[in-house]
């Protein structure tokens, strides 16, 4: 029951229309997006939308979300819905900070964050796999527990520490940041000239290769690594088969419980790593409430990404990007983004119209017109609204694309050994 109802899914399951992202389409889409952003930047003069600072901030904001999403991916590919990511992430922030401080070494914190999250995952696995509890219920409970346990531990442990308190840790030693040598200067001067496309590329490159934390690199590498493990190795195939058709896996001698356990524990570890990133790299300190719903957003990014690593990375990047824009001076940049929305909606309109789908085309067209009018009559967007830009964008993109998503067939289905018919 955890998967919830899938409206009409069984009758309308689009077979051929399933969205499979290939490298080629991905690169093409990215290129098109960069050009589009560049055009919009030149038109609106909102230079921050492709600046190196924005890109760098976007990555920093995207990493914890991507890690939570990766956590979701591991669990759900093995058929366990993990809505407890937020709680596991909290454990990651706390344990990451604690060990980082305790051993005066951020990498000890990273390991502890992984372990802390993994313990949360283990609990989730115990409840869902061994006891067959509804996955969502267990996840909700773990979110409560994550909060309670970290609050309790802070009071017990951080209170006595220099610079720590009931709700925060002492400062955590940082992790080295690295840059590709010799590119910062030239790229940033190129960026400052605001040349069409060139400056945008310079900004993007600078964001990607200057001042990047080592843990960011590790985290980003985990995405292709997860892809490799899940899609290219025997282990991954078995794990995924547990999420698609566990009885089939069982009938071939795959120990379904084992793989589910491993998957959910890894899932917790990933979320924990996201938490550790947040406390160690992004903040340098543990603060109660620091996760601020990022676990849920990670889950959204994963669904947005069609239960695939590349997709979830795109989802997390989109989220990080829009969040970075709004935090970096909000109104103007987000206002410029409206034009991007207009262009995309017009594209949808045209695309639907060529396929003779009148209603969707009309809806998209009207929406495009409305957004355009709003763009033209305003100069900026109130700060209260810019803050939900990432959420609104996610919602809009999902309502355009949700029907093309495909979750693992046995996701959320409680599996018991020997059910085979």
């Amino acid at each position, binding site marked *: 029951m955890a998967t919830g109802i899938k409206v009409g899914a069984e009758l309308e399951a689009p077979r051929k229309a399933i969205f499979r992202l290939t490298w080629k389409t991905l690169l093409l889409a990215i290129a098109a997006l960069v050009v589009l952003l560049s055009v919009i930047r030149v038109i609106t003069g909102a230079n*921050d939308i492709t*600046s190196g*600072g*924005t890109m760098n*901030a976007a990555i*920093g*904001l995207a990493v*914890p979300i991507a890690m939570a999403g990766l956590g979701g991916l591991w669990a759900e590919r093995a058929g366990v819905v993990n809505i407890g990511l937020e709680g596991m992430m909290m454990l990651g922030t706390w344990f990451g900070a604690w060990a980082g401080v305790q051993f005066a070494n951020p990498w000890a914190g990273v390991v502890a964050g992984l372990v802390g999250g993994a313990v949360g995952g283990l609990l989730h696995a115990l409840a869902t796999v061994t006891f067959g509890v509804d996955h969502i219920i267990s996840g909700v409970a773990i979110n409560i527990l994550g909060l309670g346990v970290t609050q309790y531990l802070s009071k017990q442990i*951080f*209170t006595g520490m220099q*610079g*720590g*308190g*009931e*709700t*925060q840790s002492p*400062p955590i030693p*940082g992790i080295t940041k690295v840059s590709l040598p010799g590119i910062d200067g030239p790229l940033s001067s190129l960026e400052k000239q605001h040349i069409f496309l060139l400056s945008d590329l310079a900004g993007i490159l600078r964001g990607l290769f200057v*001042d990047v934390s080592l843990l960011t690199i590790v985290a980003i590498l985990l995405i292709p690594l997860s892809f490799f493990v899940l899609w290219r190795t025997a282990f991954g195939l078995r794990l995924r088969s547990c999420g698609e058709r566990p009885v089939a896996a069982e009938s071939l001698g795959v120990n379904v419980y084992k793989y589910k356990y491993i998957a959910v524990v890894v899932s917790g570890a990933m979320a924990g790593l996201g938490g550790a990133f*947040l406390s160690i790299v*992004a*903040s*340098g*300190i543990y*603060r*109660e*409430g*620091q996760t*601020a*719903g990022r676990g849920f957003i990670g889950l959204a990014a994963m669904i947005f990404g069609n239960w695939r690593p590349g997709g979830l990375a795109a989802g997390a990047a989109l989220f990080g990007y829009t*969040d*970075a824009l709004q*935090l*970096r*001076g*909000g109104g103007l940049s987000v206002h410029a983004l409206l034009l991007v929305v207009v262009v995309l909606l017009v594209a949808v309109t045209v695309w639907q119209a060529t396929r003779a789908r009148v209603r969707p085309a009309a809806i998209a067209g009207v929406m495009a017109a409305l957004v355009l009018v709003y763009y033209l009559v305003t100069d900026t967007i109130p*700060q*209260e609204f810019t*803050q939900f830009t990432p959420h609104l964008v996610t919602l809009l993109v999902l309502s355009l694309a949700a029907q093309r998503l495909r979750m693992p067939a046995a996701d959320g289905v409680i599996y018991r050994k020997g059910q085979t018919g």
Partner: protein
Amino acid sequence: GGGSNDAKTGASEGAAKGGGGAKVGLAYDIGGRGDQSFNDAAARGLDKAKSELKVEGKELEASPGETDAQKEERLRLLAQGGYNPIIGIGFAYSAPMTKVAKEFPNVKFAIVDDAGAQAPNISNLTFAEHEGSFLVGAAAALKSKKNSVGFVGGVKVPLIAKFEAGFLAGAKHVKKDIKTSVQYLTNPPDMTGFNDPAKGQVAAKGMIDGGADVVYHAAGGSGGGVFKAAKEGNAMAIGVDSDQALTADAAVKDVIITSMVKRVDVAVFDFLKSFTDNTVQAGEKVYDLKAGGVDYSTTGGKVDEIKAQLDELKQKIISGEIKVSAKTGA
């Protein structure tokens, strides 16, 4: 637990007499002691009173999402438990305190940051955050080489808007054409903006990338991120509430040119002192520049060269020559 038995007895009025040995009840807002910010400042006041005035203290804190009834019950439990005086930290105690103070007319209450709770036994300890912010705004403008300063607010609530208003006014006062940018991290009731240094850093970095070289924050725990951004962006930062050049992480202390100190500790201590002296006065006591309730700090010597100008402004505010509005856009 003696507490529960006392609580059961109902309207025991506790030690209503002033003097040493008073049992002080302190009800914090969410976060409590150790938040390195607002609540902690109050805690410092209590600690000082403990050692200098020989009072005892009992500290309780609010939990997220609770109702007024629970705050009320917290105050009531303290009153029933014989605690007197009782101090509520934060405007959220306004309505609860009004109610409970009526039930316990012999107990003295004080509330920080609120003048709405009115009763013969309530003292309202409020601060002119805008006045202090005006001074650091001026300092920011004077120190800025790029003629551009920024303000990062944690959560967009009226209290923080006072900081923003004063800061902008101060900056504009010394440099009419100065460029200012303002960013809040979250909107109420999402209070994570006070606890999210990652966001604080992004916001501050955005301002610095946009040309600002002095950034002031009123973002509680997110301020740590603001300092980091300033450090990495070779910019300057201004702390808030306490003298953050003393309290912040050693790695970023040197970017903090000054802090807008809000002396909640002083207010709490003063109140306790007046209690032990039996001179408690009900009603609002505004801790403004004049009263030394807000000020700018000089630790680190980074504002020494403009200290004269700042002190002149300070005098003008105290004398009423400059009126600082608590509202933005004024």
